[in-house]
């Protein structure tokens, strides 16, 4: 069991770098949304959000410096969220495929 995580002090410099990246990405996403990218707008917005969330998780929440178990738990969380979202949406997306109303 890796016990080193709690002794690892993240330097303040790292926090500030992450902070500036988050602020920058926030304003990027706001400005990009005013540009017409067609159906890609949502993908770009979500991609930026995922990058921001990853920065918060890895650095602010120390997951980069955590035990394997912590990392595994975090992965499980997002994996299960994806299960909920994608499998249900798969129903909604395929409803019209059979050409029969409501099927």
């Amino acid at each position, binding site marked *: 069991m890796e016990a080193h995580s*709690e002794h690892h002090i993240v330097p303040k410099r790292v926090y500030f770098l992450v902070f500036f990246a988050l602020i920058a990405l926030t304003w990027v*996403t706001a400005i990009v949304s005013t540009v*017409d990218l067609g159906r890609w*707008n949502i993908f770009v917005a979500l991609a930026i959000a995922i990058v921001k969330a990853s920065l918060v998780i890895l650095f*602010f929440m120390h997951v980069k410096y955590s035990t394997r178990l912590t990392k595994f738990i975090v992965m499980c969380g997002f994996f299960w969220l994806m299960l909920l979202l994608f499998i249900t949406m798969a129903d909604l997306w395929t409803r019209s495929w059979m050409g029969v109303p409501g099927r």
Partner: protein
Amino acid sequence: MDSPVAVVPEIENPSALQHHFETPEQQKDSATIGMWAFLLTEIMFFGGLFLAYFAYRQAYPLAFASASNKTNLWIGATNTTVLICSSLTMALGVHFAALGKRKLLALFLVLTLLLGGVFLGVKAYEYHDKWVHHEVPGVHFDCEGCVDAQHAPLFFSLYFGMTGLHAAHMVIGVFVLLVLIWQAWHGKFTADWYTPIENFGLYWHFVDIVWIFLFPLLYLIDRSGRGLS
């Protein structure tokens, strides 16, 4: 099974070590994993709302796009900035807790609290604004200029549901912060033991992450004005 041998010697209990744990490391690690397991439940809790959002946005894209334009993009972006600042101050609070710096810890917790308060205040303003413009479903709903107005209430239900749930989490966080500030000021946390600060930090950052997704999904649908087809 062989007769067990007592291999764990009688250790003098450090003051914060609970009786059912063998070592402080075990206790701290357990608390951290427990907090993450709890955050997992929060991911799935918000997840249901995200599912409803994606389901209805896919079904009624025009309604969602025009309803989303009723939110104020720059207020939303500013509020997002405020929340990210509060995440920074929280992370710094944890940092100073780990270094045993009582006063700096308390300072950054107070800053986090203030920034959280600003966020909630802005949210309250936004809610009031929606109320005044009849954009609250179930209460004289009348969305002016909404395309596909019949389905607009779905967007607003999700807006209030998702940001409301998020705000409720922030309010809880604010109350916990008040307690932690009081405790921190009175020297309860040391470089050897500051687990509640760290675990609260995880909670606060999680709430920030939820907002990181809420902002684009609720405020930034079709801001280019072209109208989704």
